[in-house]
């Protein structure tokens, strides 16, 4: 990893107090490229992402964003710097334009169309009822909406889990474009093929603990066979 990390996690324990999901997680997440977060179901991947956006707080431990504890940031400022795309795209009532304006209330149509073009949605969809969009279109609209706050990191929680192959590839390509433009992407996936297509770095979580973190070639020769299996080592 080159340059300062986006997030520094140290001793993070999170989840319900009586049954934590993440245990003593310490890792630095890079401020560039695509970092895939992989692991079996229930290993705490989504919980980790929610902590980074501060939708939840850890029970103990510390998460620093740009060197400062996330609890010391104004939550609204922090979240505008850290975009988030959910597995189920949350659609707000109204048109696509209305949805985009939730992120940017003064958005004019010219900028809105540019935002849609960035995610390969037609300008004509601006006036469409957002609830009528297909799964892939809805996810792309949500990505466009998240990008309107000009985040430096985008958190993606299995964003293609319910999409077909074409829509999945389209979202993956967008993530790559964003990473090339300097926006770090942290992408939760349980799909090993996808992981191998998109990841610059891989964080493997097993039972809420960091099993490994590094570049994909390092994971392919990892000592732990479970890590090799999770990353789909050849």
């Amino acid at each position, binding site marked *: 990893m080159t340059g300062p990390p986006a997030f520094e996690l140290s001793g993070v324990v999170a989840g319900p107090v009586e049954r934590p999901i993440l245990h003593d997680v310490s890792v630095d997440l890079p401020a560039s490229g695509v970092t895939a977060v992989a692991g079996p179901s229930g290993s705490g991947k989504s919980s980790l992402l929610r902590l980074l*956006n*501060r*939708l*939840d*707080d850890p029970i103990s431990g510390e998460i620093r964003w740009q060197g400062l504890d996330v*609890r010391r940031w104004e*939550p*609204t*400022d922090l*979240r*505008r710097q850290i*975009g*988030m795309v*959910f597995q*189920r*795209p*949350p*659609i*707000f*009532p109204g048109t696509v334009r209305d949805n985009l304006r*939730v*992120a940017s209330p003064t958005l004019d149509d010219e900028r809105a169309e540019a935002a849609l073009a960035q995610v390969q949605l037609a300008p004509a969809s601006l006036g469409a009822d957002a609830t009528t969009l297909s799964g892939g279109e809805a996810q792309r609209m*949500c990505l466009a*909406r*998240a990008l309107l*706050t000009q985040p430096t990191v985008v958190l993606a929680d299995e964003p293609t889990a319910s999409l077909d192959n074409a829509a999945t590839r389209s979202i993956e390509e967008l993530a790559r474009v964003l990473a090339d433009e300097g926006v770090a992407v942290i992408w939760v996936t349980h799909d090993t093929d996808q992981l191998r297509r998109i990841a610059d770095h891989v964080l493997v979580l097993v039972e809420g603990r960091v099993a490994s973190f590094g570049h994909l070639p390092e994971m392919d020769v990892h000592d732990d066979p479970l890590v090799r299996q999770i990353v789909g080592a050849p």
Partner: protein
Amino acid sequence: MTPRLDAVAATAGSVDIGLAGLAASGILVGVAVGVSLWRHLGLERSLLWAALRALVQLLLVGWALHLVVDPDDSLWWSALWLVVMLGFAGWTTARRAPEVPAILPLSLVSYASAGLVTLGVLFGFGVYPLEGRTIVPLAGMVVGNSLAATVLVSRRLLAEATDQRGVIEGRLALGLSAAAAFQPHLRESLRTALVPQIETTKAVGIVVLPGAMVGLILGGADPSEAVKVQLSVMYLVLGSVATTTAVISLGISRKLFTPGQQLRRLES
């Protein structure tokens, strides 16, 4: 006494149905029981129990009202009555919506706020004289009519926070404040609670003749004077429901989020 109440009182006759009249009206309870028996509804015991409860409760209230309606009695009796009424309303609300966080203190504050606003207007502008016989019934209208709407809006808010969690967190994740993220749900819940009262107000005189007006007319008051009193009561109820639901909604909305603007996890 204000001119309006003077006018109502002056036109009021002395209709006294007496114990015999009361007993005769009880025949109508017998009619209801008869219908239940005829159609095998199994509601006879409930009907009789309800009628008996109403009789005992109202007789007790009638006796207790003597403490406050006499102009020579201290207004402190009325104040005490209001405190008991407020406490009971808070307890009832908390019992009906126990899953809502901090429902007891929030409902007490809401009812008290509505009372201050609405009774403040009515007494402040001299619509009614500040006497026990006006304070207690009007406060009763405030609390009694706001209770259902308060329970409704409280439950609705909690359901929105639970069912629409993904959408609310979607807005939070875009950098909206907790208040802004929850605003559409707050608005919808308030509308749900207020619309029935608005519809009731619209239907007055066409579909229903309200109780207070019927009571005044049966008591011998001039119908046009009874209408004016009834209208002021209707507006009082409308203002009370709006104030109570607005105050409790804001209170509950704040309780739904942490200081870090995170949506709390609650059992609905």
